[in-house]
């Protein structure tokens, strides 16, 4: 123990002037520990976890890297669910811009689209994630979302005097979510689908604050999905099983539409209220709707310019 050199009478009571050799070793000890902890952490992870941690943004992945990522994911999912899972990354088709039409005069509020979507897109069952929300409103009040009922559950639908408006991602041409994302984890693909890279998203939920349509949903806990519930045909940017802590949304069933199929909601709708097609094809259903029907945009004044068109078929 070294002697206190300070003889200054008015030194502060807390004796902060005494030097001890212990401080040197304490400091270097701490430094070594920190370094060792870091090394331990990196060494203890298996190569998959390390690779996943350092994985770059989807749009920066070269062809061989992307193949490696897809293979790793297929392996992980297949192991996790005990059945063969495929993860593709089909790119946009040329000369395609997807548009969606929703016939408000037809929707009866049966919610079959909601559950077909959940099944097709491997959404978490518990906690529940729905990518489509159906609003029930009164015919004589029109669209007044502050008086909408999300939790209607009558014996039969449609209820007298009510109409139904399903809301999901509007695939805006001027998407607020894309603008605000601090890491660029969400962007618009050439075919118009706004996608999320679930492995790049940091889960800050700024996009959820920015979306005027409540179309983005967060995985507040680890998504629960049984092997029986799993749809094994997946797309990297679409319906592959998501981790906890990331945002997801409707992707127009990117895994289906890039193979030429209709989205699951269009397929299941029993009254044909949902229409889908290529806005650039003058002969498509969606173009017919835009040219012949009374079409309107939800919250048009925000100028997000959606590619989702509500219309009245009647």
């Amino acid at each position: 123990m070294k002697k206190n050199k300070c003889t200054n009478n008015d030194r502060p009571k807390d004796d902060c002037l005494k030097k001890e050799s212990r401080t040197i070793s304490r400091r270097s000890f701490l430094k070594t520990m920190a370094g060792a902890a870091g090394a331990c952490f990196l060494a203890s992870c298996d190569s998959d976890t390390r690779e996943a941690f350092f994985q770059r943004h989807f749009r920066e992945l070269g062809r061989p890297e992307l193949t490696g990522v897809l293979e790793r994911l297929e392996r992980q999912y297949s192991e996790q669910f005990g059945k063969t899972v495929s993860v593709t990354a089909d790119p946009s088709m040329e000369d395609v811009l997807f548009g969606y039409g929703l016939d408000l005069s037809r929707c009866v509020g049966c919610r079959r689209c909601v559950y077909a979507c959940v099944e097709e897109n491997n959404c978490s069952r518990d906690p529940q994630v729905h990518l489509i929300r159906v609003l029930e409103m009164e015919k004589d009040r029109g669209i007044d979302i502050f008086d909408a009922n999300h939790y209607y559950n009558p014996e039969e639908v449609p209820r007298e005097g009510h109409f139904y408006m399903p809301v999901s991602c509007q695939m805006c041409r001027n998407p607020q979510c894309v603008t605000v994302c601090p890491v660029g984890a969400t962007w618009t693909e050439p075919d118009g689908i706004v996608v999320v890279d679930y492995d790049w998203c940091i889960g800050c939920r700024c996009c959820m604050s920015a979306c005027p349509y409540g179309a983005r949903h967060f995985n507040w806990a680890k998504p629960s999905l049984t092997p029986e519930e799993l749809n094994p045909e997946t797309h990297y940017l679409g319906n592959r099983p998501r981790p906890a802590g990331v945002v997801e949304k409707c992707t127009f069933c990117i895994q289906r539409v890039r193979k030429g199929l209709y989205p699951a909601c269009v397929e299941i709708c029993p009254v044909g209220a949902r229409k889908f097609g290529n806005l650039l094809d003058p002969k498509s259903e969606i173009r017919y709707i835009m040219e012949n029907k009374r079409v309107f945009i939800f919250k048009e004044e925000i100028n997000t310019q959606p590619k989702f068109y509500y219309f009245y078929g009647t």
Partner: protein
Amino acid sequence: MNFFKFVKASLYCVTHGSKTYFIWLAFLIVLILNGALGLFDQFHNGLIMTNMRDQVSWAFYIGNFTFLVGVAAASVLLVIPAYIYNWKPLKEVVILGELLAISAIVMCLGFVIVDIGHPERFWHLIPFLGNMNIPQSVLAWDVLVLNGYLVLNLVIVTYLLYCSYMEKKYNTTFVHSLVLFSIPLAIGIHTVTAFVYNGLPARPFWNASILAPKFLASAFCSGPAILLILLQILRRTTRLEIRDEAIWKIAELMAYAMAFNLFLTGAEVFKEFYSDTHHTVYSTYMYIGLHGHNAIVPYVWASILFSVIALILFLIPSTRRNPVTMNIGCVLIYAGVYIEKGIGLVIPGMTPDTLGEIYEYFPSPTEIRIAEGIFGLGFLTFTLMLKVAVPIALGEFNIRQSRPETV
């Protein structure tokens, strides 16, 4: 080499002190540990341990973050008169203001880390390493300016303290230019944070021009409140001399800031309730209640009451100078603005949500635990820095009296 000694000596400083000091540290460490346990819970089970849901996706953590950015920005309130107008009584306390700013930013970063779904992916935010969405994303800008402000304050403070420790004169050009730069940067951090909210057309309550000025006004009246209380504590427990005029001046400036803040609140209330559009639902929810949902109404009115009382106490010179009423004013102003920035800003912006649904949010036990832990961390940072800074400022801790080889 000398800097190394300075760091070593500082470490010694913080590990030796009075009983009160260690009891205070122990208390803070208990808070931090409790918070850490809560955080472990949250990491394990996910953010579902909070009460945030899709309908209200930003809440307690982000509310605290916003308030603390204001506190960090407010240290500039002291810098402006001290350096620009060369107001000597304030010069001594400016460094304490900067230490407060550093601690506040540490807490801000803490709240952001616990709020996001994948904190380990923070590197995605680093420019060039990750993919920072500049210039589009205001949140990305916020990350840049907040970290820049933190680094700037750390540099100023470390340099000044190191020079004092070495008993050298500091380079005035260097320090003054950095300090002068910190003024627009401080205003910048809070403006950019305001713009994060302001730039969202999806949220009409936030998408109002009044938001950025209101942020600054409420920051300037609340941030110094903590400092005022702290200065009085330091005056009593150390030999640090802080003149009454400095304290009174700060309180006076806070009064004017609060008056402006209340004026802006009034302007907002007028616009909402007089125009009475559909977008008024958010203010209706806040001040009156909506469809039977009125959980936050009492808090919002309490905040206004606290602010008005504090304004009166600080405006009248006699109550401003009386330590009892002044401290009551400080507590009231801090509480009033804290409620306003959290409950009075984040919640009404999201209630009703974008599809008109009302989800009444209140913090979960996990969120409160973690928040306590982060405040503990902030106070610990502040305490440890003060433990080094105050003796240096007093001239009791410098290179002459702490060279290890000579001991």
